[in-house]
């Protein structure tokens, strides 16, 4: 240190300490920082580095197809092209979105909104679908211009197509873009996915969807793929074979052209649904594309409610069809004899109310009451049996509760009881209510499917099946119809008589070589009309006309069908629904297409 004498005029050591301090400072601050980054936060940064170079891409699983009972394709998947962005690869996201809006002719605000809403659901470096279902024109434009827009990708996704459109729209339902709510609820769903919203597409969503696969790619900073492997192979959705017979379905749909109503055809011995038609229908393909606002409004405001699946979602008074239940109940009573007769003068008076029959039948026994559908007989029965017994019996016969078919939003209908009436109207059950109930009017409501299941049970020996739409569905043991065999057989035979007899109301169903039984029904919309109008339904305003029912079974060899047709505002059952059943019978027993 003595060597430094010459410059040690002031604190000579300060400089040396200063430099040593700087060296120590340098070492300390950086080793602490290095420890923090490389030891303390090492796993965090490793993950970041992994995220940088690994990108994952979903492989779409094809949705299960729908086939009819003979293997005819009903719903298929087609490739559809969507426009996606990888936001990390976009140098200018706002400009890119504006460009997409120009390509797809969608308002810029909407594209920006979709982007903002969806971005939290997409991981970094993953495709975010901005516009789905590109038209061919858009696709070619994008394909030529997209090289100038890094981060924009065309993604191929399978898209649903319903080959039969409105013929099967109420059975199949439709898929459409998953809503925000559905995306949040179901972690398997990704933005831009389609999910089942209605019908079997909705009910069988889990089975149809399959499982998406996952592809992992290693990329460099410019997004070039260096290496690719499939981590999970996609599992295709299960194909579904329906019990529906496309031929019958098409025929029924065709017969309901221009009408509102429902056709149900069930294989009575197995409970399998062969046709389930609701008219008018709608084209379910429109929903897959994203239905336009105009079309959606049109569907909603259509007075005939095309979206309604009338077979299971609409309820109607059964009218005289309910007399089948009444007759069954009466036949079961030890104190009521089949041969017992009452005189029908054309009306019955209760207190100061007059209950009319649609004609004067004269002396009527139980068989004739059913064959000729005499209201007076059933007014009298209703009075004797009372609401409690009637409603319990109807409930056990499958009314007033869902049939359990695999479709969403099935309605129960209504079998009124004393309690129900008190709750609903704060009023006691009256004698007149019994009269109305006995002829299937008033409060009682049923769905066409319930009627078809019931008629099937009459025809098949007393088994109330759960109507099944799937061909290979595991058979559930049917519920027994809690009728005595004699009562069931009586109703069965009387239904045949209704077709065979000269005065039978269902005589137009008569078909040579086939055992056909039937029962007509007319459910009043506004109470009984004056006689001259009853005879000429065309003279009445459409919305005031009665609904016409025809419930029938047909049997030949070992085939038994239960067929129910309801025509809304079609006038009487025989006139409105009869011809439809008649034509269906011709189709069903046409030897050129054997039943399987």
């Amino acid at each position: 240190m003595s060597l430094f004498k010459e410059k040690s005029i002031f604190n000579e050591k300060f400089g040396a300490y200063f430099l040593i301090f700087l060296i120590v400072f340098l070492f300390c601050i950086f080793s602490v920082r290095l420890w923090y980054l490389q030891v303390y936060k090492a796993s965090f940064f490793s993950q970041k580095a992994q995220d940088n170079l690994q990108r994952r891409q979903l492989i779409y699983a094809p949705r299960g197809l729908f086939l009819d009972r003979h293997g005819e394709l009903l719903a298929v998947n087609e490739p559809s092209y969507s426009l996606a962005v990888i936001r990390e690869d976009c140098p200018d996201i706002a400009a890119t979105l504006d460009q997409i809006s120009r390509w797809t002719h969608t308002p810029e605000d909407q594209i920006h909104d979709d982007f903002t809403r969806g971005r939290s659901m997409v991981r970094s470096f993953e495709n975010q679908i901005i516009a789905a279902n590109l038209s061919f024109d858009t696709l070619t434009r994008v394909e030529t211009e997209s090289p100038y827009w890094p981060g924009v990708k065309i993604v191929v996704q399978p898209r649903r197509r319903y080959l039969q459109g409105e013929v099967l729209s109420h059975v199949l339902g439709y898929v459409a873009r998953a809503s925000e709510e559905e995306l949040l609820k179901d972690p398997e769903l990704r933005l831009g996915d389609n999910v089942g919203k209605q019908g079997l597409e909705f009910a069988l969503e889990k089975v149809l969807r399959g499982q998406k696969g996952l592809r992992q790619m290693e990329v460099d900073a410019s997004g070039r793929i260096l290496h690719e492997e499939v981590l999970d192979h996609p599992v295709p959705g299960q194909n579904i074979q329906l019990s529906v017979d496309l031929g019958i379905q098409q025929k029924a749909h065709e017969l309901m052209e221009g009408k509102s109503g429902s056709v149900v055809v069930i294989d009575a011995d197995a409970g399998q649904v062969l046709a389930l038609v609701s008219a008018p229908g709608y084209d379910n393909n429109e929903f897959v594309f994203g239905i336009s606002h105009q079309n959606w409004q049109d569907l909603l405001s259509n007075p005939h409610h095309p979206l309604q699946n009338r077979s299971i979602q609409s309820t109607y008074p059964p009218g005289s069809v309910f007399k089948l239940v009444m007759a069954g109940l009466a036949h079961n009573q030890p104190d009521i004899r089949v041969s017992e007769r009452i005189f029908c003068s054309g009306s019955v008076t209760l207190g100061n109310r007059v209950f009319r029959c649609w004609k004067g039948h004269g002396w009527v026994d139980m068989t004739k009451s059913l064959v000729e559908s005499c209201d007076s007989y059933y007014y009298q029965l209703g009075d004797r049996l009372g609401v409690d017994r009637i409603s319990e019996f109807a409930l056990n016969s499958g009314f007033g509760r869902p049939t359990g078919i695999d479709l969403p939003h099935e309605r129960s209908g209504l079998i009124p009881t004393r309690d129900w009436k008190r709750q609903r109207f704060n009023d006691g059950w009256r004698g007149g209510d019994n009269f109305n109930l006995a002829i299937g009017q008033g409060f009682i409501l049923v769905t066409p499917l319930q009627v078809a299941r019931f008629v099937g049970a009459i025809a098949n020996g007393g088994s109330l099946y759960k109507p099944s739409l799937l061909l290979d569905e595991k058979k559930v043991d049917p519920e027994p119809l809690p009728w005595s065999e004699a009562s069931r057989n009586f109703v069965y035979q009387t239904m045949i008589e209704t077709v065979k007899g000269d005065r039978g109301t269902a005589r137009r169903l008569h078909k040579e070589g086939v055992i056909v039984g039937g029962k007509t029904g007319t459910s009043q919309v506004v109470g009984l009309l004056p006689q001259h109008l009853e005879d000429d339904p065309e003279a009445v305003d459409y919305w005031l006309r009665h609904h016409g029912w025809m419930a029938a079974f047909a049997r030949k060899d070992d085939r038994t069908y239960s067929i129910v047709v309801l025509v809304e505002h079609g006038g009487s059952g025989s006139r409105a629904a009869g011809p439809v059943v008649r034509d269906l019978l011709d189709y069903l027993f046409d030897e050129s297409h054997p039943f399987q």
Partner: protein
Amino acid sequence: MVDRQLFLHINWSILAIVFLLFVAGVLNLYSASAFRIGDGTAITPFFSRQILWGGISVLAMVAAMLFDYRHLKNISWLIYLVVIACLITVLFWGRTISGAQRWLDLGFFNFQPSELAKIAVVLITSVFLSKINHPLGFRDIMKALCLVLIPAYLIASQPDLGSALLLVFVMAGMLVYHGIKKNTIKTIIFTMPLLVPLGWIFLKDYQKTRLLTFLNPGQDPLGSGYHVIQSQIAIGSGGFWGKGFMEGTQSQLRFLPEKHTDFAFSVFGEEWGFIGSIILLFLFCLFLYQIFLSSEESKDKFGAMLCVGVFFYFFWQVLINIGMVLGLMPVVGVPLPFVSYGGTSLLVNFIMIGLVLNVSMRRYMFKS
């Protein structure tokens, strides 16, 4: 001129440390120059050029050792003026590479006068301070600042803010080492805050963004914050043991920007981990310590100040570069000595070491 005695007094530990640093740098550069294409690897030519520059630089270092450093006292002013002239020339006739006019085309290679300016400033400041035997007053500091601000301003207008700041910092370090009057220190501390907003006006837009980004790197993760974020990911993902030589995904897959120049340390940190980084850091500290020892051992004040100047020249670069790479400092284009790629910078580094060796080997040459 070179006698046996002198040769024996060469500070071999400095040379050994520099050799290690250079080797580490070259290896690292080899890895940083490689990038994966498909399943193979390609090497850019940075690596071989750096070795060539290394050879030239060693020659320059030897040349800087041969003469007695005390002769520099007399020609420092000349060197200083020549450098100023070069800096002015480069502003008007220099070659422009990526937006900055820094290079003079000398025919066989491009030369950056701003690198020469660093030597000149170290020399001129040493001469200046060696003549002063009292703590520096306000006047002395203003004189010194005049000396540094002329080249600094010229360099800043190229624009090369990093080099310009480095000049000022090197001189500031030397002044503090020398000692400053207490009153003057107080004055400086109080006037500094006033100068900060003034400096903001002179910054270019991209420089302002860099500073703001440093304060909040997440604000613009794909823009100017990208460098810092990717650098920290690279270093952090290296973990304790590192990913291994040539195995760094951040650098090999080019997520790291500027990986062979300013961010070379990130590549090193990713591939050699905490262990490697600490060793490299330790080597730098040892290196600085050796320079410090040389200054302590020097016989005259000019020699001591020369060593201190070189000390600060390296100290600031290490501090700023590693600080930036670790996300502790804003992004300023300052290379890491011996590790970052850069011919002129390597040359100047070796000349600086040559000067330190020159001083240290002649420590017994004259009697006290």
